[in-house]
Every structure is written in structure tokens, then in C-alpha cells.
């Protein structure tokens, strides 16, 4: 997930960003005003995380590195031979979440999953979030995103599309995503999104060693030439990647990427935006709401900060901010680089059938950085 919409600016906006913001102000002044208030909120010590909403984990792909695989019914059936009987969120839950988020000044929702564009009730979910109150982003593999669908998304209030592209080499992307033809569909979706006037972001997963490859450089060049941001997330030792420790990057990969940011339109959510450094954005810049209404601090951390049926969003965020792993500012990736936290996370999630691990069993108010 990216935070390029952050308003925390001490430096000047680029002309393109300025134009985007003016456009939003004209069409959706309420959202534009909330976004514009974020830097002042941060200066007061308040937070405005992006909410990733995982209403459904249905997906037409089976990617090698998927962080949501262990939440999926197909995984529970195949590995644990069980069905998930937990209560799932519905549209009224989403409306309540939207209301609480709005009250706290939060302004951004990403509909993710699973693959959001296979959700039968996708339009209703957008409506329940309320695209006049929140900036809505769809995080998609692009398979179903043709011209017609892109125009439709725009018409129902989606502002931005985040498209996954995991290699600039067609065969590699298709095999990483275990879906022949998916590369071509992404290319189609890029043009469809731009033609429909959607803001577009490409997203890609950086596995160990990839930052040094010609393929990655070519992808950076492609995105830059298209004037589209390339958002990079690191492969983490969670989800499907638990079986692929060789994917997990080291500091050298992260540093090579930091150098590429100078020349190309490529970034992670830790890249400073307009002079504002966020570092790891757990809780401060991002939360995930799962299909069972649990809140996790990052897409890759399977510990809950609370269930929104029992605890208000405000208290859940406060729990996160007072947690010593999550609240304080740090420059590295907690779940991707901090070996001690990775070990705790692996131990506590091992064999757990129903993720995320509930509040009190993974994270709790008794957490400490020390043994």
C-alpha cells in the first residue's frame, strides 16, 4: 500500500500532484480538505492511516507471494480441512467503519482482498464506504479491468487503481502469478485505467536480488515513461512467502531501491514524500480490516489489535500507537527486517487456523521489546 497521497509537505508539490489535488478539490472538496489536514494532524501527534479493507478473500489467481493466502477459505479447506465459521463483515459493518473513520479524520480506503473485482458486491462496498467522504482505491490484479470496467469504477467514485505487476518479463510475471495471460491483462488494464481518468499506480513485489536486475530497471523506466508511480513492497516472511524464505530481501536490496528512487518514479511506503519521512507505517500510516472485522497493523502482520465489533476504531488505533513495536517511528520494515519480531511472529502464528491471532495473544498491552 502506498501513501503518496500524504499531504505532509514541507517541500513543493510537483505540478502533476498539484493538478491532481486541485481536481479533487473541485470534485470532492470534503475529501480534499481531509487529505489537506493530514500534515497538521501529524504535527499534533494524531494519525490518519489508510484503511485496507479485506471484505472477501476470493481470488481468481494463486500468487506465489500472496500475503492473504492463509486467510482464504481455499487454504483452510486444503491445509486444515476446516471451514471458517467466524462472522464476516457486511455492508452495515462497512458503513459503521466508514463513519468512525470519518469522525477520526481518516480519509483513505483501499479495497483489496482477494481480488476486489471478483466481488459481486464491489459497487455496494464502494457505496458503503462512501466515495464522497473517503478517497477510494481498488487494489487489483487487473484481470477484469477492461475499458468498460475502468469507466464504471470511475463512475461509482473510485479514484485510483493499484495494479500488480510482478515482472516486466511476461513469462516471469505469469509464472509468479500462476496465471498465463495475466501480464497482457495488466498491460490492457494500464491503458484502460488511464483512459478512464483513474489515477493509477503499479505495484510490484521485490524479492531478494531483484533490485539489481535489468528486468527491474526496465520496469522502473517503463513506469517513469508512462508517468505512473511504481509502488514496491518487499517480500515478507508471512503468508505464502513463509514457504519461500529465499524471497525475503536484505538491507542491500532496500538500499539499492532507495538509490533508484532518485532517478525513477519508484517508491515504497517508506520513501519520504515531500520531505516527510514516515518509516515503517504500521498503524501510523496503514491498518488492515479483515473479513472478520479484526484490525491488523500492516498487511503482513497477522496479529490483531482488536475486533471492531467489540472495540472502537479509536481505541484500536490507540492500542497500536502505544505498542512498543508499532507506535514509535522506525526506518526499517518491522516484519521484513527485524529478526526478533519475525521470530515472535512466526512462533505465534505457526499452525494457527484462524488468522489474525486475536488481541491479547499476539499483540497486547504487555508487549516489550525486551525478553
Amino acid at each position, binding site marked *: 500500500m502506498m501513501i503518496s497521497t500524504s499531504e505532509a509537505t*514541507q517541500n513543493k508539490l510537483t505540478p502533476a500532484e498539484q493538478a491532481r489535488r486541485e481536481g479533487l478539490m473541485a470534485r470532492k472538496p470534503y475529501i480534499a480538505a481531509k487529505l489537506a489536514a493530514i500534515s497538521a494532524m501529524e*504535527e499534533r501527534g494524531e494519525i490518519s492511516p489508510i484503511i485496507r479493507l479485506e471484505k472477501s478473500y476470493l481470488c481468481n489467481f494463486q500468487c506465489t507471494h500472496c500475503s492473504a493466502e492463509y486467510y482464504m477459505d481455499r487454504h483452510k479447506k486444503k491445509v486444515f480441512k476446516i471451514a471458517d465459521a467466524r462472522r464476516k463483515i457486511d455492508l452495515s459493518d462497512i458503513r459503521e467503519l466508514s463513519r468512525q473513520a470519518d469522525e477520526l479524520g481518516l480519509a483513505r480506503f483501499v479495497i483489496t482482498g482477494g481480488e476486489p473485482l471478483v466481488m459481486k458486491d464491489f459497487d455496494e462496498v464502494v457505496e458503503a464506504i462512501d466515495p464522497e467522504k473517503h478517497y477510494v482505491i481498488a487494489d487489483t490484479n487487473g484481470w477484469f479491468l477492461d475499458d468498460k470496467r475502468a469507466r464504471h469504477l470511475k463512475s461509482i467514485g473510485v479514484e485510483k487503481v493499484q495494479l500488480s505487476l510482478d515482472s516486466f518479463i511476461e513469462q516471469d510475471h505469469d509464472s509468479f502469478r500462476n496465471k498465463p495471460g495475466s501480464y497482457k491483462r495488466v498491460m490492457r488494464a494500464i491503458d484502460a485505467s488511464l483512459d478512464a481518468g483513474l489515477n493509477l499506480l503499479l505495484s510490484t513485489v521485490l524479492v531478494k536480488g531483484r533490485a539489481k536486475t535489468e528486468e527491474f530497471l526496465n520496469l522502473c523506466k517503463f513506469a517513469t515513461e508512462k508517468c505512473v508511480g511504481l509502488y514496491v513492497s518487499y517480500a515478507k516472511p508471512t503468508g505464502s512467502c513463509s514457504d519461500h524464505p529465499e524471497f525475503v530481501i536484505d538491507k542491500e536490496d532496500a538500499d539499492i531501491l532507495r538509490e533508484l528512487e532518485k532517478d525513477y518514479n519508484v517508491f515504497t511506503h517508506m520513501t519520504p514524500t515531500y*520531505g516527510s519521512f514516515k518509516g515503517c507505517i504500521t498503524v501510523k500510516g496503514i491498518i488492515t480490516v479483515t473479513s472478520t472485522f479484526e484490525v491488523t497493523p500492516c498487511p503482513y502482520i497477522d496479529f490483531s489489535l482488536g475486533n471492531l465489533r467489540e472495540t472502537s476504531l479509536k481505541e484500536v488505533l490507540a492500542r497500536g500507537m502505544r505498542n512498543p513495536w508499532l507506535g*514509535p*517511528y*522506525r*526506518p526499517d520494515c518491522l516484519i521484513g527486517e527485524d529478526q526478533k519480531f519475525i521470530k515472535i511472529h512466526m512462533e505465534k502464528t505457526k499452525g494457527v487456523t484462524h488468522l489474525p491471532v486475536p488481541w491479547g495473544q499476539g499483540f497486547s498491552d504487555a508487549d516489550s521489546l525486551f525478553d
Partner: protein
Amino acid sequence: MTPNGLVLEECDLAEKPLPLFDEHGRCIPSKPTAAVHSNTRRYFAIVQPEIEYGDIYKRIKKHLGVSGDITASEFERRAEVILQKLQNDPRTKKITDGVRIPFILPKATYADYGDALERIYLKAVRDSFNNKFPQYDFVNHHKDGLAGKLSIAPESRHARLVEAMQKDQAVGYFFPCLTEYSVPAAIEQAEALPDQFLLAGGFDTCAAMIATPDLLLRTDGYPPLLWLGALQGEKEQVGYHFEAYGYNLTFNRKPHFNQVAEYWCAGLVVLG
């Protein structure tokens, strides 16, 4: 011999001065009221750069323009005396096992701290960094200027460094040993230490960065963020700091909300 040997032993123990720094040179928190970590797992750490007095002397002279008659050997001699004195005192000995950077500051009087820091010192940090690492960047992310924005925290003792600079060139040692202290805890701690310890502010931290431009450059791990702890920003709970970004060095401003973070560090300075 006293009739009770045990009592004597206890008396000896009671009189033994407790060390103020741990085996890594970290300043042991003496129960400040502000937020601090009493333990550390040393996850964010600065690695001791190579100290070559001649090179440091040349760098500071070139980029900061220290004029006057101090020679390289005089700089080395005075700096070594600082270390020696610290080593001779069992309470302070361990600070010399931690990261330490000798520096010189010019004789100077400035009308405005922020203006001088920006115009002279940050520029010199940039030049020294670029000179050593032409392939990387020093970026000052704070574009709104520093003039009129910085003041010295009264309890930090940093005003003594500024006074020393007004009289003559100042030679000192910089120790980034207040790791995992909140900014107010760093100020409280400096005040509680023996008289020779000053909390580092802008000029001294910059001098250390000019002396060793690779101070925050690590390829195998993350160094901490370095607060200019003795300086108060234009708003309460706002501070200025150096921070690595990959192989690059940055200067920036940030609200710290009086909180502690594993990633945060401030420096102490001893003049000689």
C-alpha cells in the same frame, strides 16, 4: 582491622562510584522523569568510524574553515587529553568504549543559531559528505529555513559550548551515547551528569558529521536517528535531526512528542 570485616566491605562497596556508562558506552539512565528505555537491544547502532586525527583536522579545516593557529598535532593532543581524563575516572571510563568522534569548532560569535547552522554548518556537512561519497547525497529536507527558529534548551549546558566558541577555537569529543532517550530525558540526563558533560546541539553534532561523514552510513544494519538534542525548535516538542536514508544522509525536522523510540539517539560532548 575493624571487629566486623563485613561492615568494612559494605562501606567499600558503598563508596565505590557507580559507572555512568555501560560496556558499550551508553549513558545509563539515572531515572529521568521523562521517557527513556532502561534496557536496549542495540538494534539501531552506530559503528565506530575510523579516527584519523590528521584527516579529521583537514576535513574540518577545509569545509568549516577553522582558521587560527591550532595545528593538527595540537588538536590531537587536546582531544587525547579529553579521553585520558574520562578514562582516569571509573565513573566515566566506559564512555570511551563507545562511539566517539573528536572535533574542532571555529572561534565564532553568531547573532542567530539557526541561521549559522544552516548557512555555515549544514553546508559544511554537505560538502564533507559529498567529498567522501560523491555517488550519494546529502539532502536537507527542511526547506523552510532555520533562521530565528532555534534556541538552546536552558538545562542542556550547550550554552557553554557556544560561549567557548566565542572565546577561542573549541576542541571536543562527541559521544552519541544517549541512545533510546526521549529529547527531554536526554536534557535531564545531561543535567544529572558530572559538570564536564554537555548535551550536543547543532554546531558540535555538525562538526562530528563533518569529521566523519560516514558516521551514519551502514550497509549491514540501521543507524539511529541523531537528534540535535540541546536545541529547541520553533514549536514545543519539535526537533531537528540527522538521519540516514539508505546510503544517503538527510537533515530534517520532526515532532518528537517527548516520546522515546528505539531509533532515537542524542549526543554528549566533552570539551578540552
